[in-house]
């Protein structure tokens, strides 16, 4: 079996990374998972979280806000938005949290507290806040 597999990270606006990866950890909707070469073919949706790519030369990390991943003989992640870890500043992060919060508010108003969409939006917001905890940024939204 090969040691590495082709990995692509693309967002709608551009392709962020295309490399040979040893393993890739993705934040799946149903839980995190790590895929290496020869992983079973899976398509999964993503929740906001950290995407970690281990290559032969080191690891690269990205913050993704959602999207989906396709694992086959090659692996590709199609992220709604992806920000390289290094570019992730408090400011960008606050924007993301604010966006998630606005979305949550909107859903609560529009759907009149139907459990399905509201729970989804709440989870999105929670995930977004958790991302901050993970990378040491302050969500500044203690009372959501």
């Amino acid at each position, binding site marked *: 079996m090969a040691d590495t597999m082709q990995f*692509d990270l*693309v*967002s*709608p*606006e*551009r*392709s962020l990374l295309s490399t040979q990866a040893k393993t890739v950890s993705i934040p*799946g*909707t*149903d839980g995190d998972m790590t895929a290496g070469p020869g992983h*079973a*073919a*899976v*398509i*999964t*949706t993503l929740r906001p979280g950290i995407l970690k790519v281990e290559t032969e030369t080191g690891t690269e990390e990205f913050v993704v806000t959602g999207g*989906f991943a*396709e694992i*086959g*003989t090659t692996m*590709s992640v*199609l992220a*709604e*938005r992806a920000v390289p870890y290094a570019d992730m500043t408090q400011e960008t992060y606050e924007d993301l949290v604010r966006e998630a919060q606005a979305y949550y508010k909107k859903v609560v108003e529009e759907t009149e507290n139907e459990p399905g969409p509201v729970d989804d939006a709440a989870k999105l917001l929670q995930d977004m806040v958790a991302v901050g905890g993970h990378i040491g940024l302050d969500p500044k939204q203690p009372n959501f």
Partner: protein
Amino acid sequence: MPSLKDLKTRISSVKSTRKITKAMQMVAAAKLRRAQDAAEMARPYSERFNAVLGSLAASVGGSPTAPKLLSGTGKDDVHMLVVMTAERGLCGGFNSSIVKAARTAIAKLKAEGKTVKILTVGKKGREQLSREHGSLFVGHVDLSEVKKIGYADAQSIAKDLLNRFDEGEFDVATIFYAKFETVISQVPTAQQIIPAQFDAAEGDDAGASPLYEYEPGEEAILADLLPRGVSTQIFSALLENAASEQGARMSAMDNATRNAGEMIDKLTIEYNRSRQAVITNELIEIISGAEAL
């Protein structure tokens, strides 16, 4: 016969027109390169996306519980036409060719007894369609403030469209835009986006790909992906349109610059001829005056 002074003013006015068209051509060329780059960067995403969506759709499509975005509402009485044009003119036949394609489609749908609704993106198309079909307008998206088209712009259009679809405002949605082929050729294209359609070729690709496991369920993923598919398609249409607009403007301005040059040459010849005629006249007058003495 215009006087020498008239000719001189005309020449200088055509000269300044040529300067403007030349400048516009250069600007369009620079913008075109940027727009083309943007369109190229976005291509891997939409290609992947459509491949995955295509294979998913093929496996779920037949089931009666398939999402409405894929299977449709079961009717095709109300058509929503999303006409995407530019915000600015002076780009040759770019806007009118898209509008023409939309007009033909409207006439055809009306003849079939369907109801047509129009959502316009870009000011120029709205202006051109408003006289004939103004009563069919249901909305307008203004992109004149947008310098560089981002995914967020496409998302907001898609969201608007999906809300209308959820409220049962229409059964079928088609987008009209110009596909960028080369700098001198842009093809007005109509593409149905709701219910989603996939090319047969993509379906074949999907058959060859491995059998995927889906997390969470197949249908949950499909329900998540289909609205995104709408945004993705709108996004790539917007990018194609932006590139086409600049391409069309570039060649239109190139033509205008060349025409202005020809005009200047013609006017200069005329100017020189009449100047010579004036001198000859003066000489004749002097000579015949001298002879008379």
